[in-house]
Protein backbone atom coordinates (compact mmCIF):
# COMPACT_ATOMS: atom_id res chain seq x y z
CA UNK A 1 0.00 0.00 0.00
CA UNK A 2 1.51 3.37 -1.01
CA UNK A 3 1.76 6.30 1.43
CA UNK A 4 -1.03 8.14 -0.39
CA UNK A 5 -3.30 5.07 -0.07
CA UNK A 6 -2.48 4.81 3.63
CA UNK A 7 -3.29 8.47 4.15
CA UNK A 8 -6.58 8.09 2.29
CA UNK A 9 -7.48 4.99 4.32
CA UNK A 10 -6.72 6.85 7.56
CA UNK A 11 -8.75 9.86 6.43
CA UNK A 12 -11.72 7.56 5.64
CA UNK A 13 -11.33 5.90 9.05
CA UNK A 14 -11.28 9.27 10.86
CA UNK A 15 -14.31 10.45 8.89
CA UNK A 16 -16.23 7.29 9.81
CA UNK A 17 -15.32 7.69 13.51
CA UNK A 18 -16.56 11.30 13.47
CA UNK A 19 -19.84 10.23 11.84
CA UNK A 20 -20.33 7.44 14.41
CA UNK A 21 -19.52 9.81 17.30
CA UNK A 22 -22.04 12.33 15.98
CA UNK A 23 -24.69 9.63 15.58
CA UNK A 24 -24.05 8.46 19.18
CA UNK A 25 -24.43 12.03 20.49
CA UNK A 26 -27.63 12.50 18.51
CA UNK A 27 -29.10 9.35 20.05
CA UNK A 28 -29.64 11.39 23.23
CA UNK A 29 -30.52 14.63 21.47
CA UNK A 30 -32.03 16.43 24.46
CA UNK A 31 -29.10 15.52 26.69
CA UNK A 32 -26.70 16.69 23.96
CA UNK A 33 -28.46 20.04 23.64
CA UNK A 34 -28.62 20.51 27.42
CA UNK A 35 -24.94 19.71 27.98
CA UNK A 36 -23.75 21.84 25.07
CA UNK A 37 -26.11 24.62 26.16
CA UNK A 38 -24.79 24.47 29.73
CA UNK A 39 -21.24 24.92 28.53
CA UNK A 40 -22.35 27.87 26.45
CA UNK A 41 -23.99 29.42 29.55
CA UNK A 42 -20.89 28.65 31.65
CA UNK A 43 -18.66 30.56 29.25
CA UNK A 44 -21.19 33.40 29.01
CA UNK A 45 -21.14 33.78 32.82
CA UNK A 46 -17.35 34.08 32.72
CA UNK A 47 -17.66 36.84 30.15
CA UNK A 48 -20.24 38.47 32.42
CA UNK A 49 -17.58 38.47 35.17
CA UNK A 50 -15.06 40.03 32.79
CA UNK A 51 -17.58 42.70 31.77
CA UNK A 52 -17.99 43.59 35.47
CA UNK A 53 -14.22 43.59 35.93
CA UNK A 54 -13.54 45.84 32.95
CA UNK A 55 -16.45 48.05 34.04
CA UNK A 56 -14.19 48.97 37.00
CA UNK A 57 -10.82 48.76 35.25
CA UNK A 58 -11.34 49.65 31.56
CA UNK A 59 -7.72 48.97 30.51
CA UNK A 60 -5.47 46.41 32.24
CA UNK A 61 -1.92 46.12 30.85
CA UNK A 62 -3.21 47.25 27.44
CA UNK A 63 -6.06 44.72 27.44
CA UNK A 64 -9.69 45.81 27.09
CA UNK A 65 -12.94 43.87 27.38
CA UNK A 66 -12.98 43.42 23.60
CA UNK A 67 -9.59 41.65 23.71
CA UNK A 68 -10.64 39.34 26.54
CA UNK A 69 -13.80 38.46 24.63
CA UNK A 70 -11.67 37.49 21.64
CA UNK A 71 -9.38 35.56 23.96
CA UNK A 72 -12.39 33.51 25.08
CA UNK A 73 -13.50 33.14 21.44
CA UNK A 74 -10.10 31.70 20.42
CA UNK A 75 -9.64 29.61 23.55
CA UNK A 76 -13.13 28.06 23.76
CA UNK A 77 -13.40 27.74 19.98
CA UNK A 78 -10.02 25.98 19.74
CA UNK A 79 -10.74 23.72 22.68
CA UNK A 80 -14.20 23.07 21.25
CA UNK A 81 -13.15 21.70 17.86
CA UNK A 82 -10.28 19.76 19.43
CA UNK A 83 -12.52 18.05 22.00
CA UNK A 84 -15.38 17.40 19.55
CA UNK A 85 -13.13 15.80 16.92
CA UNK A 86 -10.35 14.33 19.11
CA UNK A 87 -12.19 13.99 22.40
CA UNK A 88 -9.83 11.54 24.11
CA UNK A 89 -6.87 13.93 24.25
CA UNK A 90 -7.31 14.79 27.97
CA UNK A 91 -7.73 11.08 28.87
CA UNK A 92 -4.59 9.48 27.48
CA UNK A 93 -2.92 9.07 30.89
CA UNK A 94 -5.97 7.19 32.20
CA UNK A 95 -6.25 4.99 29.11
CA UNK A 96 -2.57 4.02 29.34
CA UNK A 97 -2.51 3.50 33.10
CA UNK A 98 -5.63 1.31 33.16
CA UNK A 99 -4.51 -0.88 30.27
CA UNK A 100 -7.30 0.23 27.96
CA UNK A 101 -4.82 0.82 25.16
CA UNK A 102 -5.13 -2.89 24.28
CA UNK A 103 -8.36 -2.20 22.42
CA UNK A 104 -6.66 0.29 20.12
CA UNK A 105 -3.54 -1.80 19.62
CA UNK A 106 -5.62 -4.51 18.01
CA UNK A 107 -6.86 -2.17 15.28
CA UNK A 108 -5.01 -1.78 11.96
CA UNK A 109 -4.75 2.01 12.32
CA UNK A 110 -2.22 4.42 13.92
CA UNK A 111 -2.76 3.90 17.66
CA UNK A 112 -2.62 7.55 18.73
CA UNK A 113 -5.01 8.64 15.97
CA UNK A 114 -7.34 5.79 16.88
CA UNK A 115 -7.33 6.78 20.57
CA UNK A 116 -7.94 10.45 19.84
CA UNK A 117 -10.85 10.09 17.41
CA UNK A 118 -12.68 7.38 19.31
CA UNK A 119 -14.44 9.85 21.58
CA UNK A 120 -16.26 13.10 21.05
CA UNK A 121 -16.92 15.53 23.91
CA UNK A 122 -20.56 16.58 23.82
CA UNK A 123 -20.10 19.64 26.03
CA UNK A 124 -17.27 20.90 23.82
CA UNK A 125 -19.79 21.53 21.02
CA UNK A 126 -21.13 24.30 23.26
CA UNK A 127 -17.60 25.67 23.68
CA UNK A 128 -17.05 25.73 19.93
CA UNK A 129 -20.37 27.44 19.23
CA UNK A 130 -19.65 29.94 21.99
CA UNK A 131 -16.29 30.79 20.43
CA UNK A 132 -17.89 31.37 17.04
CA UNK A 133 -20.76 33.42 18.53
CA UNK A 134 -18.39 35.71 20.44
CA UNK A 135 -16.19 36.14 17.36
CA UNK A 136 -19.22 37.09 15.26
CA UNK A 137 -20.24 39.59 17.96
CA UNK A 138 -16.94 41.41 18.45
CA UNK A 139 -14.41 40.07 15.91
CA UNK A 140 -13.20 41.41 12.58
CA UNK A 141 -15.46 39.66 10.05
CA UNK A 142 -13.54 40.77 6.95
CA UNK A 143 -11.92 37.97 4.90
CA UNK A 144 -8.52 38.72 6.46
CA UNK A 145 -10.05 38.78 9.92
CA UNK A 146 -11.81 35.46 9.36
CA UNK A 147 -8.65 33.80 8.07
CA UNK A 148 -6.65 35.05 11.05
CA UNK A 149 -9.36 33.85 13.44
CA UNK A 150 -9.41 30.44 11.74
CA UNK A 151 -5.62 30.27 12.13
CA UNK A 152 -6.03 31.23 15.79
CA UNK A 153 -8.53 28.41 16.30
CA UNK A 154 -6.22 25.95 14.58
CA UNK A 155 -3.20 26.94 16.73
CA UNK A 156 -5.26 26.92 19.91
CA UNK A 157 -6.85 23.49 19.28
CA UNK A 158 -3.54 21.91 18.21
CA UNK A 159 -1.82 23.21 21.35
CA UNK A 160 -4.57 21.82 23.60
CA UNK A 161 -4.24 18.38 21.99
CA UNK A 162 -0.43 18.37 21.83
CA UNK A 163 0.12 19.51 25.43
CA UNK A 164 -2.23 16.86 26.77
CA UNK A 165 -0.75 14.11 24.57
CA UNK A 166 2.75 14.98 25.84
CA UNK A 167 1.48 15.08 29.44
CA UNK A 168 -0.55 11.87 28.98
CA UNK A 169 2.51 10.02 27.67
CA UNK A 170 4.07 10.40 31.13
CA UNK A 171 1.83 7.47 32.14
CA UNK A 172 4.06 5.15 30.04
CA UNK A 173 6.93 5.92 32.40
CA UNK A 174 5.40 6.75 35.78
CA UNK A 175 2.21 4.67 35.71
CA UNK A 176 -0.78 6.34 37.31
CA UNK A 177 -0.40 9.94 36.12
CA UNK A 178 -4.14 10.60 35.79
CA UNK A 179 -4.44 13.00 38.75
CA UNK A 180 -1.37 14.95 37.75
CA UNK A 181 -2.42 15.33 34.10
CA UNK A 182 -5.93 16.32 35.19
CA UNK A 183 -4.44 19.13 37.28
CA UNK A 184 -2.24 20.17 34.38
CA UNK A 185 -5.26 20.14 32.09
CA UNK A 186 -7.33 22.35 34.43
CA UNK A 187 -4.42 24.73 35.00
CA UNK A 188 -3.63 24.92 31.28
CA UNK A 189 -7.25 25.75 30.44
CA UNK A 190 -7.33 28.40 33.19
CA UNK A 191 -4.11 29.98 31.93
CA UNK A 192 -5.47 30.25 28.39
CA UNK A 193 -8.43 32.33 29.60
CA UNK A 194 -6.49 35.11 31.37
CA UNK A 195 -4.64 37.91 29.54
CA UNK A 196 -1.01 36.83 29.15
CA UNK A 197 0.21 40.35 30.01
CA UNK A 198 -0.88 40.15 33.65
CA UNK A 199 2.07 37.81 34.20
CA UNK A 200 5.64 39.04 34.44
CA UNK A 201 9.23 37.77 34.62
CA UNK A 202 9.82 34.04 34.94
CA UNK A 203 6.11 33.17 34.86
CA UNK A 204 5.66 34.94 31.54
CA UNK A 205 8.72 33.17 30.17
CA UNK A 206 7.25 29.84 31.32
CA UNK A 207 3.97 30.67 29.54
CA UNK A 208 5.84 30.73 26.24
CA UNK A 209 8.04 27.70 26.92
CA UNK A 210 7.32 25.17 29.70
CA UNK A 211 3.52 25.55 29.71
CA UNK A 212 2.87 27.12 26.30
CA UNK A 213 -0.52 28.60 27.24
CA UNK A 214 0.84 32.03 26.31
CA UNK A 215 0.72 31.09 22.62
CA UNK A 216 -3.07 30.89 23.05
CA UNK A 217 -3.64 33.72 25.51
CA UNK A 218 -1.62 36.22 23.44
CA UNK A 219 -3.43 35.35 20.16
CA UNK A 220 -6.03 38.18 20.47
CA UNK A 221 -3.21 40.75 20.56
CA UNK A 222 -0.35 39.20 18.57
CA UNK A 223 -2.49 37.66 15.84
CA UNK A 224 -5.89 39.38 15.74
CA UNK A 225 -5.40 42.99 16.96
CA UNK A 226 -1.81 44.00 16.10
CA UNK A 227 -0.57 41.25 13.78
CA UNK A 228 2.96 40.39 14.86
CA UNK A 229 4.61 38.09 12.27
CA UNK A 230 7.25 36.97 14.77
CA UNK A 231 4.62 35.88 17.30
CA UNK A 232 2.50 34.24 14.58
CA UNK A 233 5.47 32.21 13.32
CA UNK A 234 6.37 31.31 16.93
CA UNK A 235 2.81 30.16 17.69
CA UNK A 236 2.57 28.04 14.51
CA UNK A 237 6.01 26.54 15.21
CA UNK A 238 5.05 25.77 18.82
CA UNK A 239 1.78 24.12 17.75
CA UNK A 240 3.40 22.01 14.99
CA UNK A 241 6.52 21.23 17.05
CA UNK A 242 4.54 20.06 20.07
CA UNK A 243 2.22 17.97 17.87
CA UNK A 244 5.25 16.25 16.38
CA UNK A 245 6.85 15.85 19.81
CA UNK A 246 3.62 14.35 21.19
CA UNK A 247 3.42 11.85 18.32
CA UNK A 248 7.05 10.75 18.70
CA UNK A 249 6.77 10.54 22.48
CA UNK A 250 3.64 8.40 22.22
CA UNK A 251 5.38 6.07 19.76
CA UNK A 252 8.34 5.77 22.15
CA UNK A 253 6.06 5.25 25.10
CA UNK A 254 4.21 2.45 23.30
CA UNK A 255 7.41 0.38 23.35
CA UNK A 256 7.28 0.49 27.16
CA UNK A 257 3.56 -0.30 27.35
CA UNK A 258 2.79 -3.52 29.19
CA UNK A 259 -0.63 -4.94 28.44
CA UNK A 260 -3.05 -5.45 31.25
CA UNK A 261 -4.89 -8.07 29.17
CA UNK A 262 -8.01 -5.97 29.56
CA UNK A 263 -11.02 -7.36 27.83
CA UNK A 264 -13.08 -4.32 26.90
CA UNK A 265 -15.37 -2.98 24.26
CA UNK A 266 -15.20 0.48 22.79
CA UNK A 267 -18.38 2.27 23.65
Amino acid at each position, binding site marked *: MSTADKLMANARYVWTCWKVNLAAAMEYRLSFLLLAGMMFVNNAIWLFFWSLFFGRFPV*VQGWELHDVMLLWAVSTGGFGWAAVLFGNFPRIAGIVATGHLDVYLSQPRPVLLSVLVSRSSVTAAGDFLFGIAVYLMVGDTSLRGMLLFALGLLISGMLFIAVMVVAGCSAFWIGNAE*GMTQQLFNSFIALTTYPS*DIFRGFVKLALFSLVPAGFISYLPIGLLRDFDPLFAVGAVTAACGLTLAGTLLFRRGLRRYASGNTIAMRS
Partner: protein
Amino acid sequence: MDGESKRWAVAGRKAAAVGRIAFRHQLAYKTDFAMRGFFLLFILFVFIQLWSAAYEGDFSKSISGFTLKQIVWYLVFTEALTLAAPPLCSRIEEEVKNGDVAIRLIRPQSYAGYHFSVFASEALTRFVVHLAIGSAIAWPFVGPPSFGYGWLGLLALSAGALTVTFLLLMIVGLCAFWVEETSGLYFVLQKLQFTIGGMLLPIDLMPEWLQRVCAWLPFQAALYFPARMGVHFDSTLLVKQLAIQIGWIVLLGLAVSRMYRRGVKKLHVNGG
Protein backbone atom coordinates in the same frame (compact mmCIF):
# COMPACT_ATOMS: atom_id res chain seq x y z
CA MET B 1 -34.19 15.10 81.55
CA ASP B 2 -37.58 14.97 79.82
CA GLY B 3 -38.31 12.83 76.77
CA GLU B 4 -37.95 15.63 74.22
CA SER B 5 -34.56 16.85 75.42
CA LYS B 6 -33.35 13.24 75.66
CA ARG B 7 -34.31 12.74 72.03
CA TRP B 8 -32.35 15.84 70.99
CA ALA B 9 -29.31 14.75 73.01
CA VAL B 10 -29.32 11.35 71.29
CA ALA B 11 -29.69 13.01 67.87
CA GLY B 12 -26.74 15.30 68.74
CA ARG B 13 -24.58 12.33 69.74
CA LYS B 14 -25.43 10.53 66.49
CA ALA B 15 -24.59 13.64 64.47
CA ALA B 16 -21.28 14.03 66.31
CA ALA B 17 -20.42 10.36 65.69
CA VAL B 18 -21.16 10.68 61.96
CA GLY B 19 -19.08 13.89 61.87
CA ARG B 20 -16.12 12.12 63.53
CA ILE B 21 -16.27 9.26 61.01
CA ALA B 22 -16.44 11.76 58.11
CA PHE B 23 -13.40 13.57 59.53
CA ARG B 24 -11.35 10.36 59.76
CA HIS B 25 -12.54 9.36 56.29
CA GLN B 26 -11.12 12.60 54.89
CA LEU B 27 -7.71 12.06 56.44
CA ALA B 28 -7.44 8.84 54.42
CA TYR B 29 -7.51 10.79 51.13
CA LYS B 30 -4.37 12.90 51.41
CA THR B 31 -3.80 12.97 47.64
CA ASP B 32 -7.22 14.51 47.14
CA PHE B 33 -6.31 17.23 49.67
CA ALA B 34 -2.98 17.83 47.96
CA MET B 35 -4.65 18.16 44.52
CA ARG B 36 -7.18 20.69 45.77
CA GLY B 37 -4.41 22.52 47.61
CA PHE B 38 -2.37 22.75 44.43
CA PHE B 39 -5.33 24.10 42.47
CA LEU B 40 -6.07 26.66 45.19
CA LEU B 41 -2.46 27.85 45.14
CA PHE B 42 -2.49 28.05 41.38
CA ILE B 43 -5.79 29.93 41.04
CA LEU B 44 -4.88 32.37 43.82
CA PHE B 45 -1.56 33.05 42.12
CA VAL B 46 -3.44 33.90 38.90
CA PHE B 47 -5.87 36.13 40.81
CA ILE B 48 -2.99 37.94 42.56
CA GLN B 49 -1.39 38.64 39.18
CA LEU B 50 -4.69 39.85 37.73
CA TRP B 51 -5.57 42.19 40.59
CA SER B 52 -1.99 43.46 40.91
CA ALA B 53 -2.19 44.40 37.23
CA ALA B 54 -5.59 46.06 37.76
CA TYR B 55 -4.28 48.10 40.73
CA GLU B 56 -1.01 48.72 38.81
CA GLY B 57 0.83 47.31 41.82
CA ASP B 58 -0.25 50.29 43.94
CA PHE B 59 -0.88 49.11 47.52
CA SER B 60 -2.23 52.48 48.68
CA LYS B 61 -4.95 52.81 46.02
CA SER B 62 -8.46 52.09 47.29
CA ILE B 63 -11.30 51.18 44.93
CA SER B 64 -14.83 50.98 46.39
CA GLY B 65 -13.22 50.65 49.81
CA PHE B 66 -10.85 47.82 48.81
CA THR B 67 -7.06 48.09 48.66
CA LEU B 68 -5.03 45.49 46.74
CA LYS B 69 -4.21 43.73 50.00
CA GLN B 70 -7.86 43.57 51.00
CA ILE B 71 -8.93 42.26 47.58
CA VAL B 72 -6.34 39.47 47.67
CA TRP B 73 -7.27 38.36 51.19
CA TYR B 74 -10.96 38.65 50.28
CA LEU B 75 -10.31 36.19 47.43
CA VAL B 76 -8.42 33.85 49.79
CA PHE B 77 -11.49 33.76 52.05
CA THR B 78 -14.04 33.25 49.25
CA GLU B 79 -11.93 30.53 47.62
CA ALA B 80 -11.39 28.78 50.97
CA LEU B 81 -15.15 28.78 51.57
CA THR B 82 -16.03 27.71 48.02
CA LEU B 83 -13.58 24.81 47.92
CA ALA B 84 -14.63 23.77 51.44
CA ALA B 85 -18.03 22.48 50.27
CA PRO B 86 -17.99 18.74 49.50
CA PRO B 87 -19.86 17.48 46.39
CA LEU B 88 -23.21 17.02 48.16
CA CYS B 89 -25.43 17.18 45.05
CA SER B 90 -23.57 14.42 43.23
CA ARG B 91 -23.62 12.27 46.39
CA ILE B 92 -27.42 12.51 46.72
CA GLU B 93 -27.80 11.96 42.98
CA GLU B 94 -25.65 8.80 43.17
CA GLU B 95 -27.59 7.54 46.21
CA VAL B 96 -30.86 7.91 44.28
CA LYS B 97 -29.46 6.39 41.09
CA ASN B 98 -27.83 3.32 42.62
CA GLY B 99 -30.44 2.74 45.33
CA ASP B 100 -28.19 3.49 48.35
CA VAL B 101 -30.79 6.00 49.47
CA ALA B 102 -32.86 3.03 50.72
CA ILE B 103 -30.14 2.25 53.30
CA ARG B 104 -29.94 5.90 54.37
CA LEU B 105 -33.70 6.17 54.86
CA ILE B 106 -33.96 3.24 57.26
CA ARG B 107 -31.19 4.51 59.53
CA PRO B 108 -32.26 6.00 62.86
CA GLN B 109 -31.13 9.49 61.84
CA SER B 110 -32.82 12.14 59.71
CA TYR B 111 -31.69 12.08 56.07
CA ALA B 112 -30.86 15.80 55.96
CA GLY B 113 -29.30 15.58 59.43
CA TYR B 114 -26.96 12.79 58.33
CA HIS B 115 -25.81 14.77 55.30
CA PHE B 116 -25.40 17.91 57.40
CA SER B 117 -23.14 16.07 59.87
CA VAL B 118 -20.92 14.80 57.06
CA PHE B 119 -20.98 18.18 55.27
CA ALA B 120 -20.13 20.17 58.42
CA SER B 121 -17.25 17.88 59.35
CA GLU B 122 -15.74 17.87 55.85
CA ALA B 123 -16.37 21.56 55.15
CA LEU B 124 -14.83 22.77 58.42
CA THR B 125 -11.71 20.63 57.94
CA ARG B 126 -11.30 21.72 54.34
CA PHE B 127 -11.95 25.37 55.23
CA VAL B 128 -9.16 25.42 57.82
CA VAL B 129 -6.72 23.66 55.46
CA HIS B 130 -7.60 25.96 52.56
CA LEU B 131 -7.22 29.05 54.74
CA ALA B 132 -3.71 27.89 55.64
CA ILE B 133 -2.84 27.18 51.99
CA GLY B 134 -4.34 30.47 50.81
CA SER B 135 -2.44 32.38 53.51
CA ALA B 136 0.79 30.75 52.38
CA ILE B 137 0.51 32.41 48.98
CA ALA B 138 -1.24 35.69 49.88
CA TRP B 139 1.07 36.59 52.76
CA PRO B 140 4.33 36.79 50.74
CA PHE B 141 2.64 38.80 47.95
CA VAL B 142 0.53 41.33 49.86
CA GLY B 143 1.55 41.04 53.51
CA PRO B 144 -0.12 39.66 56.62
CA PRO B 145 -3.90 39.75 57.13
CA SER B 146 -3.83 42.56 59.69
CA PHE B 147 -7.49 43.56 59.59
CA GLY B 148 -8.17 44.13 63.31
CA TYR B 149 -11.11 42.00 64.42
CA GLY B 150 -11.53 40.81 60.80
CA TRP B 151 -10.64 37.19 61.62
CA LEU B 152 -13.29 37.20 64.33
CA GLY B 153 -15.86 38.50 61.85
CA LEU B 154 -14.80 35.93 59.27
CA LEU B 155 -15.14 33.02 61.70
CA ALA B 156 -18.42 34.32 63.13
CA LEU B 157 -20.03 34.45 59.69
CA SER B 158 -18.37 31.36 58.19
CA ALA B 159 -20.48 28.83 60.12
CA GLY B 160 -23.68 30.48 58.87
CA ALA B 161 -22.20 30.81 55.37
CA LEU B 162 -21.41 27.10 55.17
CA THR B 163 -24.88 26.26 56.48
CA VAL B 164 -26.49 28.42 53.78
CA THR B 165 -24.26 26.67 51.20
CA PHE B 166 -25.32 23.28 52.57
CA LEU B 167 -29.02 24.17 52.33
CA LEU B 168 -28.66 25.49 48.77
CA LEU B 169 -26.82 22.31 47.75
CA MET B 170 -29.40 20.18 49.56
CA ILE B 171 -32.25 21.85 47.64
CA VAL B 172 -30.50 21.08 44.35
CA GLY B 173 -29.53 17.58 45.52
CA LEU B 174 -33.09 16.73 46.59
CA CYS B 175 -34.28 17.51 43.06
CA ALA B 176 -32.73 14.08 42.27
CA PHE B 177 -35.86 12.56 43.89
CA TRP B 178 -37.79 13.93 40.92
CA VAL B 179 -35.35 14.26 38.02
CA GLU B 180 -32.35 12.00 38.97
CA GLU B 181 -29.88 14.14 36.97
CA THR B 182 -28.99 17.29 38.96
CA SER B 183 -25.64 18.24 37.44
CA GLY B 184 -27.24 20.94 35.28
CA LEU B 185 -28.95 22.60 38.25
CA TYR B 186 -25.78 22.33 40.34
CA PHE B 187 -23.87 23.91 37.50
CA VAL B 188 -26.23 26.92 37.48
CA LEU B 189 -26.02 27.25 41.29
CA GLN B 190 -22.22 27.15 41.17
CA LYS B 191 -22.05 29.89 38.54
CA LEU B 192 -24.48 32.07 40.50
CA GLN B 193 -22.17 31.75 43.53
CA PHE B 194 -19.15 32.62 41.39
CA THR B 195 -20.69 35.83 40.10
CA ILE B 196 -23.52 37.32 42.14
CA GLY B 197 -22.31 35.46 45.24
CA GLY B 198 -19.18 37.62 45.12
CA MET B 199 -16.61 34.83 44.78
CA LEU B 200 -14.62 36.41 41.96
CA LEU B 201 -15.44 40.06 42.58
CA PRO B 202 -16.61 41.79 45.78
CA ILE B 203 -20.23 42.92 45.40
CA ASP B 204 -19.12 46.48 46.29
CA LEU B 205 -17.28 46.62 42.94
CA MET B 206 -20.36 45.64 40.94
CA PRO B 207 -22.73 48.14 39.34
CA GLU B 208 -25.39 49.68 41.60
CA TRP B 209 -28.29 47.83 39.95
CA LEU B 210 -26.61 44.45 40.41
CA GLN B 211 -25.81 45.20 44.06
CA ARG B 212 -29.54 45.79 44.63
CA VAL B 213 -30.38 42.44 42.97
CA CYS B 214 -27.73 40.62 45.06
CA ALA B 215 -29.16 42.06 48.29
CA TRP B 216 -32.36 40.03 47.77
CA LEU B 217 -30.62 36.70 47.09
CA PRO B 218 -29.10 34.15 49.50
CA PHE B 219 -25.79 33.81 47.63
CA GLN B 220 -24.12 36.82 49.26
CA ALA B 221 -24.73 35.27 52.71
CA ALA B 222 -22.71 32.23 51.65
CA LEU B 223 -19.52 33.95 50.46
CA TYR B 224 -19.54 37.73 50.40
CA PHE B 225 -20.60 38.35 54.03
CA PRO B 226 -17.78 36.44 55.78
CA ALA B 227 -15.09 37.39 53.25
CA ARG B 228 -15.93 41.11 53.37
CA MET B 229 -16.19 41.07 57.15
CA GLY B 230 -12.76 39.41 57.20
CA VAL B 231 -11.11 42.39 55.53
CA HIS B 232 -13.50 45.15 56.71
CA PHE B 233 -14.64 44.50 60.27
CA ASP B 234 -17.78 46.42 61.32
CA SER B 235 -19.57 45.26 64.48
CA THR B 236 -22.93 46.85 63.55
CA LEU B 237 -22.85 45.23 60.14
CA LEU B 238 -21.80 41.92 61.70
CA VAL B 239 -25.00 41.77 63.75
CA LYS B 240 -27.10 42.68 60.69
CA GLN B 241 -25.39 40.08 58.50
CA LEU B 242 -25.76 37.39 61.18
CA ALA B 243 -29.48 38.17 61.31
CA ILE B 244 -29.75 37.94 57.51
CA GLN B 245 -27.92 34.60 57.56
CA ILE B 246 -30.28 33.25 60.25
CA GLY B 247 -33.24 34.43 58.17
CA TRP B 248 -31.96 32.60 55.09
CA ILE B 249 -31.14 29.46 57.13
CA VAL B 250 -34.72 29.35 58.46
CA LEU B 251 -36.24 29.98 55.03
CA LEU B 252 -34.01 27.52 53.16
CA GLY B 253 -34.34 24.99 56.00
CA LEU B 254 -38.12 25.06 55.62
CA ALA B 255 -37.74 24.62 51.87
CA VAL B 256 -35.44 21.60 52.38
CA SER B 257 -37.83 20.05 54.88
CA ARG B 258 -40.83 20.51 52.59
CA MET B 259 -38.95 19.21 49.55
CA TYR B 260 -37.73 16.17 51.45
CA ARG B 261 -41.20 15.28 52.75
CA ARG B 262 -42.73 15.58 49.28
CA GLY B 263 -39.79 13.98 47.47
CA VAL B 264 -39.48 10.91 49.66
CA LYS B 265 -43.13 10.02 48.93
CA LYS B 266 -42.35 10.00 45.20
CA LEU B 267 -39.23 7.91 45.56
CA HIS B 268 -39.27 4.34 44.24
CA VAL B 269 -36.22 2.23 44.97
CA ASN B 270 -35.78 -1.21 43.49
CA GLY B 271 -33.20 -3.22 45.35
CA GLY B 272 -30.51 -1.02 46.90
